[in-house]
């Protein structure tokens, strides 16, 4: 079973390392990990896809909560959520195949974002399954290069409670109280 976890953390130097180091050290099986800014300045948001059973997912949540810089963690597996991944795929083309590739892309509501003489770049957004399936179709044409972001997730609905303990204050801001700069 795959679990989707979201964690918010103070954007301090090395925080990604702290989290990934903990996951490696505790031997958790992480399918994907994606980091980005959140709506709060100074707070980053990480989305994890964890492979395992409920107990493993539960342990990942608890161990993440223990990382001091992590301000909140949520397992959104059972919630209604928008789950998306973005992929950029450079496919080899010939005059004979170009039309077919563009057609496939349209079926998947993917966009062609770059065209050159012998290849084009398809941008796909969707669930991992959808992206997987598009990639399968593209393979016979020859995939020259590819990048996938890994899953990002946002819960649906508008009366959604904020995850507990998300603070707007950040380390640097507090430290600045102190006045003097680097000596």
């Amino acid at each position, binding site marked *: 079973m795959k679990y989707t976890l979201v964690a918010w953390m103070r954007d301090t130097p090395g925080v990604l390392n*702290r989290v990934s180091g903990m996951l490696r050290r505790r031997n958790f099986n992480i399918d994907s990990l994606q980091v980005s800014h959140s709506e709060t300045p100074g707070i980053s948001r990480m989305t994890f896809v964890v492979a395992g059973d409920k107990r493993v997912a539960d342990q990942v949540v*608890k161990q993440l909560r*223990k990382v001091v810089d992590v301000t909140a963690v949520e397992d959104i597996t059972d919630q209604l959520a928008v789950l998306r991944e973005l992929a950029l795929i450079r496919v080899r083309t010939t005059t004979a195949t170009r039309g077919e590739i563009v057609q496939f892309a349209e079926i998947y509501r993917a966009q062609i974002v770059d065209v050159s003489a012998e290849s084009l770049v398809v941008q796909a957004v969707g669930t991992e399954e959808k992206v997987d399936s598009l990639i399968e179709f593209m393979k016979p044409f020859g995939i020259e290069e590819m990048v996938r972001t890994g899953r990002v997730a946002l819960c649906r609905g508008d009366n959604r409670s904020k995850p507990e303990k998300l603070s707007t204050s950040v380390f640097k801001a507090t430290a600045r109280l102190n*006045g003097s700069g680097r*000596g």
Partner: protein
Amino acid sequence: MAIAKREPIDSGYDPGPLEMTGSQMIWESLLREGIDIVFGHPGGAILPAYDALAPYEADGRIHHVLVRHEQCAAHMADGYARATGRVGVCIATSGPGATNLVTGLATAQMDSVPVVAITGQVPTNLLGTDAFQESDVVGITQPVCKHNYLVTDIAELPLVMKEAFYIAREGRPGVVLVDICKDTQNAAGVFRYDFDIDLPGFEPWPEYNAEALQAAADLLNRAERPLILAGHGIHLSYTSEELLKLVEKAEIPVVTTLLGTGNIPETHPLSLGMGGMHGEAFANRAVQACDVLVAMGMRFDDRITGRLDRFAANAEIVHFELDRSEVGKNIVPDVAVIGDLAETLPAFLPLIQERHHSDWVQELNVWRAETNEADIIQYEVEELIPPFVIRQLWHATERTDKRVIVVTDVGQHQMWESQYYIHEEAGMLLTSGGLGTMGYALPAAIGAQMSDPHALVWCVAGDGGFQMTLQELATIQQEKLSVKIAIINNGFLGMVRQWQQIFYEKRYVGTPVLSPDYVKLADAYDIPAAVVRHPSEVVPALEQAHATEGPFLIDFQVKEEVNVYPMVAPGAAVDELIRRPKPGYAQGYSGVQPSW
């Protein structure tokens, strides 16, 4: 909501914002945390901090203990912290100084000991250049710390110091390292310490759930064969008394973990001593036969559980624990009470009915009697065996009215100490339980003694482990300490030899260990010492040690190939143990004997 439980020692000292250097800020922070002692070793990258220490040392506000190896600075801070419940502080230079700390920090972190480590780092402009004595200390120590910091900006230093002590101390204690660049130590800035700690991601004191507590009480009230498995958390939360009340109210036997030793007095009829790999057969039997197991402040380490799927297979399990990540990590309990035992245990008591469990206790006592009969100490009188030495050490220290602290190293002697020394109190045994760090005993004993010069501190070590950190004998003399040292000298790395005997057909590879003449060695440090070779010499030597002012070392040259029994082989269930050989049989392994 996080509630601060154990308040920082209020030094009452805060003259408000002051202009000063980063180096001074280190010491000013310590003063505000009520710290008056640090264990360390200087070097280039921490020199500004050492230089700034001079006035604090001169007027006695902060005492620096020079160690002979940084590993021991961390162990001393650890021993100091375990003996006092306060944060221990160690300090080292960059590169090799910091990497030398690692074993000591890992030891403290594994056993939930509050330690703050301060290390110097190369100047900020050299960071990442493989500069002389540069190492990525934050990276190296991250897995063995509760949290750590690299400080490159003087503006952040005061808050970092305050957070470091807060994190190390609050909740489940642990290690926090602060790595400070040399130019940051030299920089000037404004020091203040009146910050409110704002750590939204740090939840030191989760509030317990009253329903869970009631569910736990319901289970225990229904139990016919209840058992408590009490760990280090009891001591960390100072709830030994409440535990005893609970135990007596409902007549519940208690098994402890190694770090839970003495949670209830071991002379108490309901105390079954330590369980697990070298726990007594009746203690492990109790674990396997109980119908409700209440685990308190412990983490189901493999040394206590043995084979997990067969552990307490007949029991419903209740887990009282502060650190929620320990709940469900190894054992999924039927009821979990997450919270501080200092809150949950007093709230639990009134929910528990007064009861007797005479049949259950009777059954355990039959087992206990059988075990005692087979005990080597009952019949082996001709030769000097370690259990006898330890038992006599207990008798000798029993008579003193001083506070007694026993610090053990790691190996056979550590297990014998646990079995044959009778601990009356939580916190009187300091030992490396989680990491099992050889070399721990001597420096930790020094740290403990520094915290209480009037205590009677016994360092009990094997000939192997003692040789790992014996250079600290010099520290004992430099600090004029009166640590007493017992070396259980069996000519082997005993515990490993025992495994080779049992699991590797007696191929003693790398385990015979040569020792120096310990009396001569002690003499070189001007420490009085004695050799003991025969049982009759044990008591006089111990008496001499106690009668001597200052330190004393005894080299107990014990019988070589004695094994620690009972023993649960790694991976076996705790009731598949190798029992003590019956009297008259050779000590040693003779196949797995039927357990019961």
